[in-house]
């Protein structure tokens, strides 16, 4: 059953359209991640749902229209980008805040606070001042505070944005486990694709206030719906071509395309992993113009001698060619994707 339904939600700030007729549905117990570059309207979307931002269109929660329902009666949780913990209250006071607002008695409140602090991995931290917390701890307190009143929908604004990489990767796993254990319905926004793909059941990519693509992480990853989505996901090897009998003629030479591709003009991209470096003479002639060590592999920038945009290729650490070397390039059909 759909817990959240957005129907033609639009927000304008003066001349600028921040959200443009957004339709979105989130099912109960589902975790949806809205992914997009900064300025694409993600945070505004959350503010509209929370009732903090007036908007045109309809917001329904559990089937009920939320127009005219003030923020504090919507029963949603929102974890702010920079947490917004109340500086004058200790950790316990922050977590208990929503419970007090809902008239929960003292004994039950204390039990719930202890339970939540345990849940987010900060047992016994109730008396600590929020100013004494590290970034990761603040994160956990903010999460506990948002979860405490048992919101029907939990919204997270860049939940892991300010944390360092190692902590982020650990927390993503923890959060995913936590949400599936609690059965919480979650709507998160982030600009980090890794975070979105790791956290979400479904990913919604936004661009300039519109939804560019929605689908499971795998779908979006395998078949980006547009050049924008492809480039946003880091696929820069985009080129125009003409399909004839199983291959596309491009400035990079002949690129094999999946079987059944319609003949004629097209745009396609090749994932870096599908660009194979082969000895000179075999394949398309290129010159190595950059070489970046990525830990598990080396990323190469290849200038195709025949012209066209620089190709990005991934290759093994051992035997990676030096900058200036001449190489040949072949394409793996499994990593070639046609753009609609």
């Amino acid at each position, binding site marked *: 059953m759909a817990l959240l339904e957005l129907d*033609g939600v639009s927000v304008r700030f003066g001349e600028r359209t921040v959200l443009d007729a957004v339709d979105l549905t989130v099912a109960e117990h589902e975790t949806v991640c809205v992914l997009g570059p900064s300025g694409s309207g993600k945070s505004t979307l959350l503010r509209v749902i929370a009732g903090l931002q007036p*908007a045109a*269109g309809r917001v329904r929660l559990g089937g009920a229209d939320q127009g005219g329902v003030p923020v*504090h009666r919507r029963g949603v949780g929102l974890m*702010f980008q920079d947490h917004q913990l109340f500086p004058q209250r200790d950790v316990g006071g922050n977590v208990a805040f*929503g419970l007090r*607002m809902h008239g929960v008695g003292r004994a039950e409140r204390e039990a719930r606070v202890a339970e939540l602090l345990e849940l987010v991995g900060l047992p016994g931290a109730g008396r600590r001042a929020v100013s004494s917390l590290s970034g990761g701890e603040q994160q956990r307190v903010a999460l506990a505070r948002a979860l*405490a009143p048992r919101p029907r929908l939990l919204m997270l604004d860049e939940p892991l944005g300010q944390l360092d990489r190692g902590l982020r990767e650990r927390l993503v796993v923890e959060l995913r486990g936590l949400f599936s254990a609690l059965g919480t319905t979650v709507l998160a926004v982030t600009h980090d694709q890794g975070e979105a793909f790791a956290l979400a059941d479904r990913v919604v990519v936004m661009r300039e206030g519109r939804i560019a693509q929605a689908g499971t992480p795998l779908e979006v990853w395998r078949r980006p719906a547009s050049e924008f989505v492809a480039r946003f996901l880091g696929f820069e090897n985009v080129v125009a071509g003409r399909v004839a009998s199983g291959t596309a003629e491009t400035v990079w030479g002949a690129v094999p395309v999946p079987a059944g591709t319609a003949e004629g003009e097209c745009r396609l991209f090749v994932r870096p992993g599908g660009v194979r470096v082969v000895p000179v003479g075999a394949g398309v002639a290129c010159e190595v113009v950059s070489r970046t060590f990525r830990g598990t592999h080396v990323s190469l920038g290849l200038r195709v001698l025949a012209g066209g945009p620089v190709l990005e290729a991934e290759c093994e650490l051992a035997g990676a060619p030096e900058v200036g070397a001449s190489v040949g390039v072949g394409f793996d059909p499994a990593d070639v994707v046609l753009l609609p």
Partner: protein
Amino acid sequence: MTARAGDGAQSRAAGTGVRATAARLALMALPLAFFGLFFAYPVAAIVGRGFDTDAGWEPGRIGEVLGRPDIAGVLWFTTWQALASTALTLVIALPGAYVFARFDFPGKQLLRAVVTVPFVLPTVVVGSAFLALVGRGGLLDELWGVRLDTSVWAILLAHVFFNYAVVVRTVGGLWAQLDPRQEEAARVLGASRFGAWRRVTLPALGPAVAAAALMVFLFTFSSFGVVQILGGPAYATLEVEVYRQTAQLLDLPTAAVLTMVQFAAVGLILAVHAATVRRRETALRLVDPALTARRVHGAGQRALLGGVLLTVAVLIVLPLGVLVERSFDTPAGYGAAYYRALQDEGAGGGTFLVPPLEAIGNSLEYALAATGIALVVGGLAAAALTRRAGPLVRGFDALLMLPLGVSAVTVGFGFLITLDEPPLDLRTSWILVPLAQALVGVPFVVRTMLPVLRAVDGRLREAAAVLGASPLRAWREVDLPLVRRALLVAAGFAFAVSLGEFGATVFIARPDRPTLPVAVARLLGRAGELNYGQAMALSTILMGVCAVSLLVLERLRPERSSGEF
């Protein structure tokens, strides 16, 4: 369908805007009514009475009055003494601002409190203190036979004494928060030490210096108590002249013209001040002041610190010390005779219907009531002004500052002639005095509360709302705890200025219920050693009450405030 739903939501959005405006107007209603009834109406009535003679309205009087040589002299003196006082205050206080901002030395907190004491002192006390220092039979007179009370220097020095803290707090407060790394960046790029200061720090400080200078100019331009006591018959500011014309010569038309002139001048000063404040709000990189202060090292810095300490000692501590000393210096040697005489009903040669000591109780009672009124009115106004908005609200902001500069004498006299008939016959009501005192308290409450209220991150309120707090509850749970200290500080300031209010109170306080400043002025107005001694004793008591409330404030004041007062 979608379009219709959209329209509905749009009108809902517009509805919240209308509601917000309505809420703000509701908050402003009481402050507006208060200022309309107890400020605009009395002042307008006095001015109107001045022009509305038997021969009908005579606006032509303005030119006539301003053309009189004695009035022209008053205008000229008022302006140049204010300019001279401002320049002198800046020259003397700017090194102090630097020392307080950038140096770390033992006793800094205490010294900061000490230099602020004069600002909350009643003008009458400041006048008495300087009289005790440079007046007839004063310390300098006794030691070297030097008397300054017939010269303008006494007035200028008293003005510096009074406003030193304005510059130190306004300029020093900002200076302490300027990131020193900005100057360091300029140095690395090749600027000399002085060049870096001139090109980086000075432009950042400029608006603060201008704002402080304007405040000092405003206070000294409308100076009353100090000039009244130290100026003698030779020197009069506009405010003193308004008082003389109203209370002594009963020449209302002339007083009305002078009030108008002062009103216009003050309005102009406030408009310029508002403009500089707005410029000051432009983004600067501010840091925690605790990080910018350094230990003193090197002969140059030690000399600067020493110079500032000496200035404070001579200019601020000495007059206050002499005041206390005089209050105990009886003909029969040091003792508390003057204090004992204050309990005496016949004290002051029949000037009082009651023992002067009762003035303490009166003053405290009035000041407490005035503080309450100022907190309610000022608090509501500050709440309404929290959200930055259009020119209307900005105008309201400036309006709140007007009572600081408009002739208190006019307000006091206006009270007497306007609030004397039903439905508002307050002439015999004790509330009249607190109402007049609250007028000067409100600007301080607004000025103290506003920056703190504006600094409350709006998203904290949103966080509370999402967690289920209604708007009122969110205010109580989020804003109130954050502004509680500021509220107490505001209360303290309102209390101190109410306690010291003189210009309006002198008109409306009933003879059998004088306040401390009124009692001091009456005692000073009489000849005789005993009266003088009692005036010193009462001033000392008044100073004590003000200093104690200020020291409490200093404890409460949040570390990172850069308020104006």
